[in-house]
Each structure stands twice: as structure tokens, then as C-alpha cells.
């Protein structure tokens, strides 16, 4: 089964926004090979002054309303390939709302209206031709609280590949399960008890199980919404280590309240405040010498 996200390039809807950034989005569109295999080993530390990497996802002039209340204002942001982009900002700043726009999780929320243009590898993800289920296969998500299915460890991982028809037979499915658990750094801990319930694992293991579940369907992008906030420092370190390893094969966007975590795991950081994107730059720049005083006030703990 060919997912529409991986299908050969359809003629994209012409960008409707007249923003100057549109051309770079279009360039990325041409260069981004949709069927390009994940390149392992690409995850070497991104040099600070790296040439602008190709965006995997682009958002342009995104506005969003919850009923009458506007939650996002003209947000334009690129999520570069094989990098970790951290979204930071105080509660209610719109970072999670924006993250959820990237795989249309806001569609399920009553009264949400969105404007703007969000693309994955150049394709408009809000286009009518897009199958949302397939989109969420391509753009997976890991939540704050580990939420394994009330099923065995094996079935937690196998569920996605089964419904997306990614495995021909049991052997192939076994392989996907094993590789996903290995990818999430959980295999050695659970290989002897794949039939035990997923929720019998510790919190940190459950979160890695959710990450394994997310990567089992071979997504392009993994969205993480506060993946460590319910975990102890050791489990957090495991997840951070994992995020760094996953970057070789996936593109990651992470929402975190932990500034040190954002500084450690990401290459790009975007700072949101009251629904606006205030500053977006190399992570090193943001945390050592941000350009905007509002960013500085926030990351140094001066927000009053």
C-alpha cells in the first residue's frame, strides 16, 4: 500500500500566501525527494553555521482560533530534515497548538479554525486529497503522558503496521516490532516478555514503548509533546539519548518546558509567546545570545 504522503509528487496547490518565504518553500519542494530512504548516520552534530538545511515541513502564516479566541498569529516556521526543532514558551503560548497543527490533531477539537499553509515535503497537508490517517502515519506523535494501548508490548507496536498493511506476514511483523523496540532502546529490556501488557512497564519504558510505536510505521516526522515531563531524570536521560539517535532517521519537533532539555536535544529552537513566534534560530544562539529581549527574559527566568 502506497501512502499518499509517499506517493510521487502531485502538482501542489500553488502557494496562496504572498510572503517572501514562499520561494524557499518551493525550492525545498523540488529538492525534497519524497521516496528518499532515511539516511542512517546523517545525524552528526549539525554545525552551528550550517547552510540552511532543507525543510521537511514548512508552515506559513498559520493562524488558529479556538472559537472566538485566536491562539496562533501568522506563524511561519520551517522544520528542517534530520534535525530536532524545540518549541519553547510559557504555558498558553501556542507551542502545543502549533505542534498539533503539524499532523492535524486539532481537527478533532470542536470549534478550531485554522488558516495558513502547512506542508510536508512540499505537499499541503490540509489539502482535500490528504488522508488524515496516512498523514498521521507520516507525522507521528508522542504525548506527555505515556499512553500505551491496553494490549501486550508486541501488539502495541504491531497495531500501526497492521492497520497500515506494512507487513506481509508474521515474520515481517516480528521484524518491525523488533526493529522498532531496538530503535527506541527498549528491546533488551522487553525481548523476553513481549506478551506482557504494555502498561506493566515503568513510566520511562512506557514512553519508549510509545516512541517505538510511533517509529513502527516509518514516519517522516515525529512530534513530541512534553515527552519527559512525567519521567524521572534517568528515564528522561534515556529519552534524550534516544531523541539524538532518532534524528539520524527522522525529523523531530519537540515541545518542552524544560529549557535545559531544549538546549541539549535540539539544533533549532523556536520561542513562542501569546500565540506569536517571537524568535527562531540555531539552538546555540537562542540559549547563549538570543536576539530578542523577550526570548532572553524567558530563558533566563525573568518573565514577569
Amino acid at each position, binding site marked *: 500500500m502506497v501512502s499518499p504522503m509517499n506517493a510521487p509528487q502531485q502538482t501542489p496547490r500553488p502557494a496562496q500566501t504572498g510572503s517572501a518565504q514562499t520561494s524557499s518553500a518551493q525550492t525545498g519542494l523540488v529538492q525534497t525527494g519524497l521516496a528518499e530512504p532515511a539516511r542512517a548516520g546523517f545525524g552528526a552534530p549539525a554545525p552551528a553555521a550550517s547552510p540552511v538545511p532543507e525543510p521537511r515541513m514548512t508552515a506559513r502564516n498559520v493562524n488558529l482560533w479556538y472559537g472566538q479566541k485566536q491562539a496562533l498569529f501568522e506563524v511561519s516556521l520551517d522544520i528542517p530534515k534530520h534535525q530536532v526543532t524545540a518549541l519553547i514558551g510559557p504555558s498558553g503560548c501556542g507551542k502545543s497548538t502549533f505542534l498539533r497543527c503539524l499532523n492535524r490533531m486539532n481537527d478533532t477539537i470542536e470549534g478550531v479554525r485554522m488558516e495558513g499553509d502547512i506542508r510536508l515535503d512540499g505537499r499541503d497537508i490540509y489539502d482535500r486529497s490528504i488522508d488524515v490517517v496516512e498523514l498521521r502515519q507520516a507525522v507521528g506523535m508522542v504525548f506527555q503522558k505515556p499512553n500505551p494501548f491496553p494490549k501486550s508490548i508486541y501488539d502495541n507496536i504491531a497495531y500501526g503496521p497492521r492497520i497500515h498493511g506494512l507487513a506481509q506476514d508474521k515474520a515481517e511483523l516480528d521484524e518491525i516490532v523488533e526493529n522498532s523496540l531496538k530503535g527506541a532502546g527498549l528491546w533488551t529490556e522487553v525481548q523476553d516478555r513481549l506478551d506482557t501488557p504494555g502498561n506493566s512497564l515503568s513510566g520511562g519504558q512506557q514512553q519508549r514503548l510509545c516512541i517505538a510505536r510511533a517509529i513502527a510505521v516509518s514516519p517522516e516526522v515525529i512530534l513530541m509533546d512534553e515527552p519527559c515531563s512525567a519521567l524521572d531524570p534517568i528515564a528522561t536521560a534515556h529519552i534524550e539519548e534516544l531523541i539524538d539517535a532518532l534524528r539520524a532517521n527522522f525529523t523531530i519537533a519537540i515541545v518542552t518546558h524544560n*529549557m*535545559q532539555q531544549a*538546549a541539549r536535544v535540539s539544533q533549532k529552537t523556536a520561542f513562542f509567546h501569546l500565540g506569536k513566534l517571537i524568535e527562531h534560530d540555531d539552538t546555540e544562539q537562542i*540559549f*547563549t*545570545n*538570543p536576539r530578542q*529581549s523577550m*526570548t*532572553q*527574559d524567558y*530563558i*533566563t*527566568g*525573568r*518573565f*514577569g
Partner: protein
Amino acid sequence: MPKEHIVSAYDTDIENLTRQIIEMGGLVEHQLAQCIKALTLRDIDLATRVMDGDDKVDQLEEEIDKAAIRILATRQPMAVDLRLVAMALKISNDLERMADYATNIARRAVSLADTPPVKPLYTIPLMSELAQSMVADVLDAYAQRDTTKAVAAWHRDKQLDEMYTGLFRELVTYMLEDPRNITACIDLMFCAKHLERIGDHACNIAEKIHYMMHGQRINRMPQAAE
């Protein structure tokens, strides 16, 4: 500095660290002034007091290290705060080196007090005046977070270097005139070299103040100086 932190104890930590640097700077200024005085007045007692005073400087440096490490561990400073704490560590190191040079000058002052004066000293007091003014200005600049003042002091280093080169030639002439001058001239040469190095450390501090405030280095292009 930007607004206050949400956690006011964090502000207190940073203020205390700044105060410690200023205190150490004040002590170094004093050491420097006294060693020059001992040198020009041929005052062995005073020179000895300068040498004894160095322990206090070292002790302050240790305290600053401790305070900075504690802030790093407890506050995980970011951006301007991070630069401030990191530069406190480096600035205290520069100050400690300056004090060492002051001690060395005091040591030379003791040895010079035993030998007949070579010639009336003109350049050494001029150099020390300039070096002292640079040190005073960078310390003011630090206390006031005034990068303009820091950069102005930084530019004066060139003048100090020129004085040193001039004095070097002058002393060589004296040594050629009469080899009995050599011991004293060598001592003076070291004193001049130490003053020149003190100026360099003052420059380092100016650079660190600039980085601390702006996150960028002072433009090192020589022509940009004027």
C-alpha cells in the same frame, strides 16, 4: 542588566558574584598602586607588604570560583546570565594574574632598592599610570556594565605597548653606556614587561565585558581601533 529574575535569590547570587569581582578588582588596583610606589620610593617594607598581600587575592579568586560553580549548579544560567557567570570565572583569572605581576614588581623593587638608581625614572611611572588607569576603567566598566568604557580602555593598550618598546630601547642604551647598570636595568625591564602584561590582562577583561554584555567579541581588526 535586564529585568529582575522571578526568583529573587538568583538576582542576589548574581549581585554577590559581581560584588566579589569588584572587591577583588579593588584589591588588585591597590596592590598595583603599592608596588609602583614601592618601586619609585625604594620602599622595601611596602614591597614586602605587597608580596604578603597576594594571598588575599588568591583567596578571593577561590571564593569567586566557588560562587560561580554554585550558581551554575543551582540556577543553570542561560544567555546573559550564563555569559556573566562564565566571564566572572575568566575575569577573576585575569585579575589574579595582574596581582601576580604586581607581586613580581614588588620583588624587583626590593632588589632595585639595593642598587644605585640608574637614571631618573620617567617612563616607568608613565607606564604604570596608564596601566593603572586601564585597570581602573575596566573595573568601572565591569561594575557599571559599560561596554563603551571597556572598549575605550581596550584601545589604550596600544599606547602602553609603544611605551614599553620605547623604554626597552632606553634601557638598552643605559646598559651599553655602563655595564654596571645591567642588573638594575634588567630589573626595570622586567617591571616594564609586567606593566605591559597587566595592560594585556586589562584588555582581556574589557573583551570579556563586551562578550558578557553583547555575546560578541570586540572587533579585533587593528584599524577598527581608531
